């Protein structure tokens, strides 16, 4: 179950095929496993390692470097409140305090119903719209205590289901490279000049 399922294994192989070296697909595949299971399981680590030709320890080493990978279940919605400079200057501390009070958990905690995990986060590239937060990495700008409460209400009632998928689903649109149009990978082991360059003629 927590290895990649059949459909995702096929997708994983397609993704691996885009890179000159399979190991480059490690992070996309970890995202895929997190999309399937909500977090990264040990079995998924082992499966990704098999697929990219690395050891589980190497994949674990990569996975633990990146903040987005979770190794235990988190809430359906991960609420990340930005606390970096511009947000901090415009009330991030108050927003976090209010969020902790509203959700009844401290930063880092998950609500008892498994709906929300609250986290401190760093700069979300929306500094002119401070204070910001992200729900499963979808931006919410210029937050106030009122708009925070409204957001939580909407999420609980399922009113944002179309916009914000459950934790783990990164993008709802995927790239597909049609086989009949693909130029193909450029392997470092084949030192050929590209066809359009003058070096290719010699």
């Amino acid at each position, binding site marked *: 179950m927590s290895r990649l399922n059949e459909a995702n294994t096929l997708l994983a192989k397609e993704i691996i095929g885009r890179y000159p070296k399979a190991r480059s697909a490690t992070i996309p595949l970890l995202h895929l496993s997190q999309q399937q299971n909500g977090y990264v399981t040990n079995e998924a680590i082992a499966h990704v390692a098999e697929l990219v030709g690395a050891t589980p320890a190497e994949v674990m080493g990569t996975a633990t470097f990146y903040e987005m990978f979770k190794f235990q279940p988190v809430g359906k919605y991960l609420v990340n409140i930005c606390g970096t400079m511009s947000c901090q200057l*415009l009330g991030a501390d108050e927003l976090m305090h209010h969020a902790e009070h509203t959700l009844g958990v401290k930063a880092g905690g998950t609500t008892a119903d498994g709906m929300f995990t609250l986290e401190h986060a760093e700069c979300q*590239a929306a500094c002119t719209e401070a204070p910001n937060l992200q729900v499963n990495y979808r931006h919410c700008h210029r937050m106030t205590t009122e708009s925070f409460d409204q957001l939580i209400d909407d999420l609980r009632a399922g009113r944002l289901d179309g916009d914000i998928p459950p934790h783990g689903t990164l993008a709802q649109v995927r790239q597909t490279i049609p086989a009949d149009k693909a130029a193909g990978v450029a392997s470092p082991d084949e030192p050929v000049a590209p066809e359009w360059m*003058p070096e290719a003629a010699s």
Partner: protein
Amino acid sequence: MSSYPWAAGFIDDGDRPQIVTSRFSFDDGYTLERYHATGGYEGLKAALRRTPAEVHEEVKNATVLGRGGAGFPAGTKWGLMPPGKFPRYLVVNGDESEPGTYKDRLLMERDPHQLIEGCLIAAYAAGLSQVFLYIRGEMPLAHERVGAALNEAYAAGYIGRNILGTKFSVDIVLHWGAGAYVVGEETALIESLEGKRGEPRLKPPFFPAAIGLYGQPTIVNNVETLSNLPWIAVNGAAAYTAIGTATSPGTRMVAVSGHVNRPGVYEIVNGTTTFRDLFYGDEFCQGIRNGNELKAFVPGGGSAPWFTPDQLDLPFEGRLVGAAGSMLGSGAIMVMDHTTDIPKAALTLTHFYAAESCGQCTPCREGGTWLERVLQRVVDGRGSKVDLDQLLEIGESICPGNFPHAASSKLGIEATPFPYKMTTICFVGPSAYAPVHSALTLFREEFEAKIVERKHIPVTVGAPDDHH
């Protein structure tokens, strides 16, 4: 006034040239249909009518300064690859995460085809066999917009084998990050793209142009840098250099945030627009909030040493800002008014860099954390006078010698110009120190005010009972 809800933060008031934001006013600027209707892919067609060397020359003549932070000209960077060594790769740096920076995400969400066209022009000109477009993990909308645009462009024959019926063939692969600030550093980005922990490589020898992805020559270019190329391919280098100044041509996207009346993302004329224009101009931020006094500002992202009102009349020009003791970095300006608690603001930034240290280099891994802890103690009112000197001592171990800082008329001090020396592989360590050094140099009295003199309490030695 037009502030579009679908491009939150972007403001295009005033009569300024728009090179990279021209489609932000359309709510469907990210579709191929709109892109075609507004001159899209004409730059690629123009490039394909010329030789790669001619296109490369055009970009070099335009002097497109890198918009990611270092400001190195793109055309010159392409020329650093060893001749005859193939394959070569293009890695697009879409890992925007420097505190205060907000532009690349807008460019990816609002005009992904412009970025794709820029990638194609770069690949054609510099002979790059495959493109990897690395987008920060915490930007799902950018992933969706760029992903959909790539799918459209493949279907239309702009990407893939024999593009537009020519010999030019290249794939663009959308790649996902997963949350690590340091990966914005180009060699860390390459490590991450190889499926590893995002730890920067030592330069030399690992300059990406020589030894990059899979050990091959690799160009790492920022999203905004590449987004300039379609315009240049259509209009030419001369039209580009006619905007801005000789050393800083074209336009730049800047994000002004913090205590201003109208924070926003603006495309400004490079090299001539001053910080005063930006903060007080009607077409820009329209003054400091509530009519307050400006106290300090960070001119180029969280890593940059701070400026005060003394530097307001400096233009947005890299060399001048460097001589004045800071850097323009990634076009991120954060403004603090007179109500700002300066030690706390410095702590916020130092915390960021301490948390984002990859842990390779001891001065950064340990030093960053020490800076944060000592500073936290001072901010919490538990600090002592030696703490302030200790902060500078820790900084000295990360950046030996004189650290860059701005001049101050109030304090009667001269500027120490950029750059700094460092004992670490990359700039994350020095970045943890920059806010501490700036704040302590320019506002030491605010730190001293937080230090409460305590009475010396003599230590008594005796049986445990004596303490009761």
